């Protein structure tokens, strides 16, 4: 298996180069705006501009954002059954726009930078470290599980009663791997934290970006009432 969830975030655009904290703050502000507006379509222009500035493949963004549709459609269907078409449309527009903003934000920020930004904004360090390790080793574990499944299939197929044993083996090998990782960390001077070489800082462009997004959202709400 060769998933590469960080493929987009290795690109280069004005948004890619911004500090993760600015992107997280702008994302939270946009999500709050979209989530509470009475006219979500008014936000489509902002989301569209962000998608263009990100230089990410537009079709890819649309496809990933559309993954929320099965869930939203269920809620929309309930509204339609109640005869409230406007509400159904608003639910779909809100969720699609929110998903698009999230897809763009994650697409322009490597996962490690996103976690670092969360840590610098006060998220518990332990939680961040656990998430970082989970992200790093999740695919290694997937591969291990896939190999075990192939081994089972090669010898006659999958059986539920054997699955429990397989999970136990996977747990034991994960535990062993964790010990190995800890040894490797100690060997290179682990002192309880993961210092970052990420040199981005919250400078003038970041202040301008965050303030600009917030000011625009406030203006939309107060002046135009959307």
């Amino acid at each position, binding site marked *: 298996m*060769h998933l*590469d969830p*960080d493929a987009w975030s*290795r690109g280069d655009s004005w948004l890619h180069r911004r500090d993760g904290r600015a992107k997280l703050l702008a994302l939270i502000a946009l999500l709050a705006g979209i989530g509470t507006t009475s006219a979500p379509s008014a936000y489509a222009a902002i989301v569209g501009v962000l998608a263009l500035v990100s230089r990410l493949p537009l079709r890819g963004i649309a496809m990933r954002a559309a993954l929320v549709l099965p869930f939203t459609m269920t809620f929309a269907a309930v509204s339609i059954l109640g005869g409230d078409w406007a509400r159904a449309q608003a639910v779909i527009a809100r969720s699609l726009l929110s998903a698009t903003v999230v897809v763009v934000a994650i697409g322009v920020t*490597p*996962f*490690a930078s996103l976690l670092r930004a969360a840590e610098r904004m006060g998220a518990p360090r332990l939680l961040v470290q656990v998430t*970082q*390790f989970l*992200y*790093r080793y999740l*695919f*290694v574990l997937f591969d291990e599980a896939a190999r075990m499944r192939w081994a089972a299939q090669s010898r006659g197929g999958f059986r539920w009663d054997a699955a429990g044993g397989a999970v136990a083996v996977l747990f034991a090998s994960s535990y062993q*791997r964790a010990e*190995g*990782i800890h*040894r*490797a*960390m*100690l*060997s*290179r*001077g*682990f*002192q309880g934290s*993961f*210092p*970052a*070489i*990420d*040199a981005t800082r919250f400078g003038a462009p970041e202040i301008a970006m965050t303030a600009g997004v917030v000011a625009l959202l406030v203006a939309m709400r107060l002046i135009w009432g959307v």
Partner: protein
Amino acid sequence: MGSLIEARGLRYRYEDGTEALRGVDFDLDPGETVILLGGNGSGKTTFVLHLNGLLRGEGEVRVCGMAMGETNLASIRRKVGVVFQDADEQLFMPTVLEDAAYGLLNLGYSRGEARSRASAALDRVGIGHCAHRAPYHLSGGEKRRAAIAGVLAMEPEILVLDEPTTSLDPPGQRELVELLRTLPQAKIVTTHDTGLARGVGTRAVFFEAGRVAGSGEVADVLNRFDWEAYRDREASR
């Protein structure tokens, strides 16, 4: 000049009662590349884990004249760089460059200095182009090189490599031999790979049941313990 590593009467027993080391005496001199040979469970890996204090048994270990102990541990780990058998366990940071810089930042280097030294170490082992990739996406050979770069970046005086050719294809094995030959550090290499042993070793030490059973020229030790023939027999079982 004295030995870089001196081990005297080293004994270690795992929690399950397995006696992994039963009195090991060992010396590493500057400029040497010592190959540790021996069957599975003979104590090679347990022994190398004692060289930077990851395991502590009975007996004495001195590194560059420093006795193994809590007070010297940080200095000793700076002197002894360990490259583990499973590169996936060694490459735990999100990108290759961040991984190579990990030890440097722990040593107190500034971000800029750590970044440039880490980049230089990656170039040194020939994978500078992989700097911004996730370790998961590297090939086996690239992972091995990235793991070595993370240790080399810290400029250790002694390099310890545990089964470095595991999961490498023959071209990868040859490249690793070439790379190790160019590194000036004294080295300790545990391996079953007789090609690697002959290619880089200046001396070999044979482990058997937690003891040093013999030591000498690589070819002599391989012949004395009938190691290549033994391996062939093992492989054909």
